[in-house]
């Protein structure tokens, strides 16, 4: 009898380690625990920036019939390194490898196959080659965020607060190749990608092209630098249900501050499977002087013209994020969904999240 089969006959192993869900967690953490000290040592020696994140979040659907409470746990590694020559940068590498576990989520990422499931997730995994050496032309290869709308200046990485992009493009990350750089006061980015989203899938031959030009920014932030951006998107996107969705978009986004208040907005126009579409997001936020406490209210509107007329999906959210302790943030959000394309009933959604990130 093989050793694994022998172990699985044992009650303890059968219950706790022959379960696929637990096995994935155990393998991940064992690997990370062995890898973690090495990464930390390497960081000091050759300039790798390594961080480790743990996030736990939940959503409570107040008006759902059953399975009201769902939880999502994630943990992962975020590593970055700039490879530099004697006079110029050669390439920047960013690797974000996670394990995500869902527990009874009614609304969960499409790659989860069961109510209780764990999956390894590759977020960013790309190399950005500094082709010109002066920052004017870089060539990117790998798995990356699509350069569309507010996702470029705003960091919503693993946060409760989301911005409209997934509703527009049906994906946030994709495998592809692109160019990017800075010309004067403007950053540009263009990406030709697989069109299958977070997982690489090639059936039905999806594809997508995304591009954005906007005011130059120094870094993504939860509250970003002020500026404007213009984005375009075209593609045949492979949805998680296996269907192809043909989409075109043009979008304008902007960020502006007035003392303690900020206004973030994005409006997109185009087609979704030959249906005219326009979507809009407006957010008013408030922060303290070190932005460790941020409150926001959002209004989102998604609109499509079906055969029987325009249908609208509207929602309003109020939320807050706190980060007074270094590396530790927690967030709460209440959303009322006034209607959706499929139903006219309201839905209240309560969300909460704890996040720890350390380097």
């Amino acid at each position, binding site marked *: 009898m093989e050793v694994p089969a022998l172990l699985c006959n044992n009650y303890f192993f059968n219950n706790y380690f022959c379960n696929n869900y637990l096995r994935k967690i155990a393998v991940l953490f064992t690997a990370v625990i062995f890898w973690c000290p090495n990464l930390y040592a390497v960081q000091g020696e050759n300039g790798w920036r390594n961080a480790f994140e743990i996030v736990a979040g939940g959503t409570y659907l107040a008006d759902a019939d059953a399975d009201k409470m769902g939880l999502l746990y994630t943990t992962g590694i975020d590593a970055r390194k700039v490879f530099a020559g004697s006079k*110029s940068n050669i390439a920047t590498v960013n690797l974000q490898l996670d394990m995500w576990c869902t527990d009874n989520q009614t609304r969960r990422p499409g790659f989860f196959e069961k109510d209780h499931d764990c999956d390894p997730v590759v977020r960013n995994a790309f190399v950005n080659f500094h082709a010109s050496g002066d*920052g004017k032309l870089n060539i990117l290869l790998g798995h990356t965020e699509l350069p569309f709308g507010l996702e470029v200046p705003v*960091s919503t990485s693993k946060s409760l607060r989301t911005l409209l992009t997934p509703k527009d493009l049906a994906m946030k990350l994709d495998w592809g190749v692109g160019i990017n750089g800075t010309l004067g006061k403007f950053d540009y980015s263009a990406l030709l990608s697989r069109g299958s989203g977070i997982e690489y899938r090639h059936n039905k031959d999806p594809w997508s092209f995304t591009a954005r030009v906007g005011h130059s920014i120094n*870094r993504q932030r939860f509250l970003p630098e002020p500026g404007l951006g213009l984005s375009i998107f075209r593609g045949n996107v492979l949805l998680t249900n296996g269907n192809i969705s043909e989409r075109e978009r043009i979008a304008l986004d902007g960020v502006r501050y007035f*003392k303690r208040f900020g206004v973030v907005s994005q409006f997109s126009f185009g087609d979704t499977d030959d249906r005219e579409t326009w979507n809009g997001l407006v957010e008013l936020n408030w922060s303290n002087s070190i932005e460790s406490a941020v409150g926001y209210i959002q209004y989102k509107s998604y609109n499509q013209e079906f055969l029987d007329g325009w249908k609208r999906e509207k929602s309003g959210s109020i939320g807050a994020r706190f980060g007074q302790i270094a590396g530790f943030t927690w967030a709460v959000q209440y959303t009322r969904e006034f209607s959706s394309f499929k139903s006219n009933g309201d839905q209240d959604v309560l969300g909460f999240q704890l996040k720890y*990130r350390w380097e």
Partner: protein
Amino acid sequence: MKYDDGRTHGHKTPLLRRGILWMLSLLLLQLSAAKAYAIAYCAIREPVSVIQEFFPTYTSYRTLEGLIDENVRQEIVEVLPESHFQEFGIHSLYVVYREETLIGFVHARTEKGRFGLDEIIWILGSDMRLKTFKFQKNRSGAIPQSMLVRLTNMLAGLDLIRVTNVLRTEPNLNQRDRVIISSAVKALFVTKAIWPQTQSPLTQSSELSGSALSSVL
């Protein structure tokens, strides 16, 4: 509870699973120092626009990464107690070249502003003296042009000792002046402390430790 694959578990099993996940997570916490930014690394970009603006004849730049450890942090806090927690972590210095010649440095600092975080980009000459600065993100209200000119003229060409002297001796500094000049002190001090390889012979001769800086102040 029955799962899709046919296995069944008692009611306590999901709790145990979560317990294992959290125990392993806490174990990971113990393996690393708890000094953190809450910013993902995909977020970090390079201030190429500023390099292009202030070094129009540049041909390339190179990124140097450096770790602000407890010692550097302590030295900064001694002289600038208002420094906030984000001083921890890895910081970047951008070394700017024209062909084979080093023509300057760029270093970005995030500062507590009046209504939110300000991001000030400091431009240094090849001799590590201040040239000028620019607000990449300004949440403290617009800066009058006259104030910008006055501060730029006050700081241009100064090294670390002279900038700290300005902070100590200049009589007519308002609160915002002090925030900006303190940022300049941090930019120069951090640059000296964590990238000593970038110091020219000229600047090395006036190299300064944290305690020496304290005595200046």
